[in-house]
């Protein structure tokens, strides 16, 4: 996983709540068997509208997505995270994320930042007034900074440590091999098996 420490970039203000993963990446894109090449599928239906915020010239190259509440609801498709990253986003800010999307984002180094809606409103207003306004998301200090705005955000210490160091979860877990083997040895015999032993 790519490490996330601090990032500064311009924003895309997405004034929509309940942005579900079918909007982020429609199902027909899920037939691909790779983790890349999803950028053209990102918000595919909405991008057909020339006025959609992502299509505007002043938003090209922006890396911080500032979205309405309940971002990433719906399916567990990790492709939604890959599509945002393939397109160039480094971080997403919202007042609330769906649980599975949030888990997926943190496993890929896409930092999802939860801020109060009034701070999200302020970031929207700032970015709409000045498309060149930059937003800094600092994971060291767990703080979002922009002109006239400073807001702390929460992220549990373990997730933060893994992101800052770009650590691979599987390697970390396999360090506990003895614990896993001990648990397996003690499992009751009535537990289901998909194949005969």
């Amino acid at each position: 996983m790519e490490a996330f420490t601090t990032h500064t970039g311009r924003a895309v203000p997405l004034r929509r709540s309940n942005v579900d993963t079918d909007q982020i990446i429609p199902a027909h894109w899920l037939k691909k068997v790779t983790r890349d090449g999803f950028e053209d599928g990102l918000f595919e239906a909405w991008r057909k509208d020339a006025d959609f915020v992502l299509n505007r010239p002043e938003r090209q190259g922006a890396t911080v997505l500032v979205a309405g509440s309940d971002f990433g609801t719906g399916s567990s498709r990790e492709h939604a995270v890959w599509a945002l990253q393939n397109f160039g986003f480094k971080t997403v800010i919202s007042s609330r994320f769906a649980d599975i999307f949030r888990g997926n984002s943190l496993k890929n180094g896409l930092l999802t930042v939860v801020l109060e809606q009034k701070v999200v409103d302020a970031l929207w207003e700032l970015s709409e007034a000045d498309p060149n306004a930059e937003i800094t998301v600092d994971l060291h200090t767990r703080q979002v900074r922009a002109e006239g705005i400073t807001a702390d955000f929460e992220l549990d210490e373990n997730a933060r440590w893994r992101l800052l160091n770009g650590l691979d979860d599987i390697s970390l877990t396999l360090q506990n091999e003895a614990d896993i083997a001990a648990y397996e040895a003690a499992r009751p015999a009535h537990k289901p098996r998909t194949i005969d032993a």
Partner: protein
Amino acid sequence: MGRTLAEKVWDDHVVRRAEGEPDLLFIDLHLLHEVTSPQAFDGLRQAGRPVRRLDLTIATEDHNTPTLDIDKPIADPVSRAQLETLRKNCADFGVRLHPLGDVEQGVVHVVGPQLGLTQPGTTVVCGDSHTSTHGAFGALAFGIGTSQVEHVLATQTLPLARPKTMAITVDGELPEDVTAKDLILAIITRIGTGGGQGYILEYRGSAIEKLSMEARMTICNMSIEAGARAGMIAPDETTFAYLEGRDRAPRGEEWDAAVAYWKTLRSDDDAVFDAEVVIDATELAPFVTWGTNPGQGAPLSAHVPDPASYEDASERNAAEKALEYMGLTAGQPLREINVDTVFVGSCTNGRIEDLRNAAAILDGRKVANGVRMLVVPGSVRVALQAVSEGLDKVFTEAGAEWRHAGCSMCLGMNPDQLAPGERSASTSNRNFEGRQGKGGRTHLVSPQVAAATAVLGHLASPADLSDTRTPAGVR
């Protein structure tokens, strides 16, 4: 202090607990399908890792599979390649697979329970958000992303922060024609699409206890639409009766040991939930969605809401956008919404009871002119059972299309899709923009409402059908 059902199952699966770290949980059952697994198998290959527990892993094909001409090569080359990738991965790593054409093939969440693999007190994961379905057995079951699929394949564990618990108590008797689907749609509208975020839901109360296993699966299936990764129901005699004798259920002494354990899986009387919601079952009615998220629903007797009536700016904005997309007008009676397509199927409502309920209404009636009705059984086993009961004939004589098993029009990854602007009444779980095909408009309904809607051509409940049946012997 007592513990909740969720806490008991969680505690029984902790491999390692350390201060300041997520718990490492053991996973009893890992279900795989073609869409969310290819990148995970690639990860294993790159790291040179095997699948740790082949005996706790099983795969099927469902999302991409066609529901017509399944004996011919799959027409869409990209879908075909994805299915072939799963077959190669399962062969290379030794995973049990039920491919298209196999008698155990079907929607992954229908296959697990019918094989008897989904059992009380187990942890079940799958790269699919509707894994919450399996919670109906008192399992802790939740959807995961592809990185976690790889993690479970490699380690049979997941590091997870312990969620909070929410009790949803439904007391009283459900009125006639009100189904588990109506109940869960009403719950989602009540608590919102984010209401369950960070929680494991436990459905309880006298109305829940009376439900069949299949109805309980419908409820738990849509926990994710309320924002919760998992929903659970305490196992009871209904659960044990469903499981006994199934292919992978325990037998003999192991059955007795299992049941003794399963009977301990109830929230203690003094257990404390982090949140509680109480629903009066007697006040419920057939329920449909009008918008583009599953929380935008209302009783069938209601009208399309006026966005201006929402105090919250974000909800108002969402309602305006939803009405625009859905082509609806505020104040329009929901019963006057005409549909082009009716879909009966999916992991929400594609089991045998769902097909029986829809067929009972269609028997002796006809699908309205101009309406296309697709009936897609959740698995090959469900299809065979339906055929043995003659349900396929009921559907085809009514003018509906009887198809092969799979996810089908629930998400339109196969050719079963809505055309732009087309409107459906669908027994599936998501009414998102474009979910059933680009520009398609979806109303989520129960199988009974789906069947009545097919007959009348507009959103309707069985009670609206008083004299549409051809007298027996005439048809």
